């Protein structure tokens, strides 16, 4: 393989590994804020202990997840320079400030207050500790804001001019709030809520099965199921809006998603099939006549552009086609599980959750990491769907790569893959271990606050 392909695989591996963890922490931190607020509101009642337990257990998971997100994120920031120097050389005037604002406004905020959130109980007042938790939640969300702004700008670039091949900013407001940004940001934040929600539900279900559940487990499970049951229809609605936005700005991506090879009126919706890029057709296609035109243009006879309109400028069809179907499939599964779960849960409001039907618990366990699958599949759709461009329609990915020896890139890629594989196993293993050993040390202030003294 050449250095270009290897660098692409390496970047994809790095960013795929990285996104797993922020996808959890962005929303998990807001769950933690909720647990804390409930704990404060129920102080003095028996419920308070449960909220405290939920807060502590999930804070531990948060700390672990956050650490993985930080270290894999540092790797990301170096990849631009080591493998894609052409990106910053040509797009740096626009990408730079957006990344810079992420570091300045979000990274330091979350990293600093995380220390107080994790270790500061007893050293600061309860109110300050709550503020620290809020700051971390706010910081992670702000981080998503900036990075998705840049990512969206690469998909739908506006507000720039090109001088001597280099991009220059003309209108920063237009750049930050570019046409696909509101949709992509909402879609991502909701995806994070679903990922964290299904993780909490799955781990809690596992604790109920294993008999290691406590009052906190029940509160966490109820919160998570309620959250995902509310969020999943919103997400499906938002996903549809995002798709319409993509049709407007990136019709080649939609053509690949839908497997529309030739421009046609009343295009059918392909449910499944095997995209055959050589022959320019979908083999064994299972189709609903006119449905694609109906869904995408809200008119069963509307014309949809096919891949033939974008010779040499459309993405590879198969990964985009399949990524989309995996994402939608997992989304529909989430809808079913979330609503059945919510129905069962609220029917036995007064009963002990240990009597929840086993099949439901095992399904929830099986769905614990479903958010990861849907998130990765969705990102592959949108990022592979942007190819062959780095900045859509303007700057090709191949023009940004560093001319390293393939063997060198291959060696670092192998090292990253080994480390990432081991860490993924360790992460899931430790979460399972923690779920089975939910040691609940001293709640409330863990230790008395010492008087500050000089050292």
């Amino acid at each position: 393989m050449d250095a270009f392909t290897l660098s692409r695989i390496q970047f994809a591996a790095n960013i795929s590994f990285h996104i797993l963890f922020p996808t959890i922490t962005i929303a998990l931190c807001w769950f933690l804020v909720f647990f804390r607020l409930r704990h404060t509101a129920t102080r003095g009642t028996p419920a308070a202990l449960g909220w405290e337990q939920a807060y502590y257990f999930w804070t531990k998971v948060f700390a672990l997840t956050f650490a993985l997100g930080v270290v894999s994120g540092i790797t990301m920031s170096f990849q631009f320079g080591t493998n894609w120097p052409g990106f910053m050389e040509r797009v740096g005037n626009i990408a730079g400030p957006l990344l810079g604002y992420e570091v300045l406004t979000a990274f330091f905020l979350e990293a600093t207050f995380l220390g107080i959130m994790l270790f500061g109980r007893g050293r600061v007042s309860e109110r300050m500790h709550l503020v620290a938790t809020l700051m971390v939640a706010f910081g992670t969300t702000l981080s998503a804001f900036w990075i998705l702004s840049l990512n969206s700008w690469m998909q739908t670039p506006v507000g720039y001019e090109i001088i001597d091949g280099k991009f220059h900013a003309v209108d920063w407001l237009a750049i930050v709030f570019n046409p696909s940004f509101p949709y992509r940001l909402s879609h991502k934040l909701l995806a994070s809520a679903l990922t964290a929600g299904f993780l909490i539900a799955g781990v809690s279900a596992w604790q109920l099965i294993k008999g290691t559940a406590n009052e906190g487990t029940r509160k966490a499970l109820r919160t998570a199921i309620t959250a995902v049951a509310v969020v999943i229809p919103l997400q499906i609605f938002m996903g549809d809006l995002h798709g319409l936005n993509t049709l407007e700005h990136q019709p080649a991506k939609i053509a690949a998603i839908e497997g529309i090879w030739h421009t046609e009126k009343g295009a059918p919706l392909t449910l499944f099939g095997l995209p055959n890029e050589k022959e320019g057709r979908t083999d064994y296609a299972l189709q609903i006549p006119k449905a694609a035109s109906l869904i995408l243009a809200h008119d069963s006879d509307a014309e949809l552009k096919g891949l033939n309109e974008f010779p040499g400028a459309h993405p590879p069809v198969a990964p985009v086609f399949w990524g989309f179907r995996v994402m939608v499939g997992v989304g529909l599964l989430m809808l079913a599980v979330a609503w059945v779960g919510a129905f069962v849960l609220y029917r036995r409001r007064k009963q002990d959750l240990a009597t929840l039907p086993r099949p439901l618990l095992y399904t929830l366990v099986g769905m614990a990491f479903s958010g990861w699958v849907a998130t990765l599949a969705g990102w592959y759709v949108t990022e592979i769907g942007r190819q062959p461009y780095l900045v859509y329609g303007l700057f090709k990915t191949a023009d940004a790569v560093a001319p390293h020896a393939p063997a060198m890139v291959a060696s670092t890629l192998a090292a990253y893959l080994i480390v990432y594989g081991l860490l993924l196993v360790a992460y899931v293993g430790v979460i399972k271990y923690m779920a089975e050993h939910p040691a609940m040390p001293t709640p409330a202030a863990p230790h008395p606050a010492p008087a500050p003294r000089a050292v």
Partner: protein
Amino acid sequence: MDALNWATALPLIFMAVMGLALLAYVILDGYDLGVGILLPFATDAEKDVMVSSIGPFWDANETWLVLGVGVLLICFPTAHGVVLSALYLPVAVMLVGLILRGVAFDFRVKARDSHKTTWNRLFAAGSLATTLAQGWMLGAYITGFQNDTWGLLFSAGIAITLPAAYAMLGAGWLLMKTDGDLQRKAARWGQGALWPMGFALMGISLATPLVSPTVFAKWFVLPELFALLPIPLACVAAFFAIRHVLATPRVVQAGYGWIVFGATVLIFVLAFLGLAYSIYPYIVIDRLTVWQAASATESLVVIGIGVAITLPAIIAYTIFMYRVFWGKARELTYGL
């Protein structure tokens, strides 16, 4: 100032911001990397205290690296490409090291007890690998990425020196944050790191002008030489201050252990100033000046506004956090 002056001043300002961010990184992550390097020499109970002494800080400390490299990326994209492409392999080693030690922090207290030893080892190994790689990168950077024998030897020399310097910072940190046996051990570790650090610093200071004629020309001319003399002299003074405190337990007992950390920081700051003087006005020595590598002025203005507003806030809440965790570290609570 008119536009032309901003075009001249902003790259310099950002060079300073980048340098200070990287200096902050080297000092702040330096002490927690140093604690990681010292970890294998401690008992299991002491390891918990050592890790807990850096637990609240390490994440924010590493963020300074992201800021430093971020400024390079944002404000000097051309230099960023040149520097990081040339440092491809050491950067990869450093990143894998940072990954391992960063996650080991969390895994070591959450995994089952039988795995704790493995995570402790990964924590120490990751800290050492990160430090070696950073030393190598600094060496390669100073020589302007010469790949000849002297250039490589110089890089290797700094690579094996930096662990001693970071271990010194780590020992100084532990003198402040611990007491009893561990504090006495920290003083011994500091003594062990002292002479290797001293010799190496001297060696590097003498070798730098020899591998780089540009640096030689900046230092060995009159009258600049006299103006620059305070830098090496202050370094020597700081060195002997460290030596005295480490060798005199009652000074540490009396609460002056911080002198070791403070004097080591002073040495780092002076070395940084010397380096900055040596390299200016280049960002990639002999190849790119700060102005040649800078982004468009309008982008620098946008990011400059952000820096002017947020950096004071970042410094303020960083100070707040150090005040919250002021005093001696305790063993970890509830496995966070």
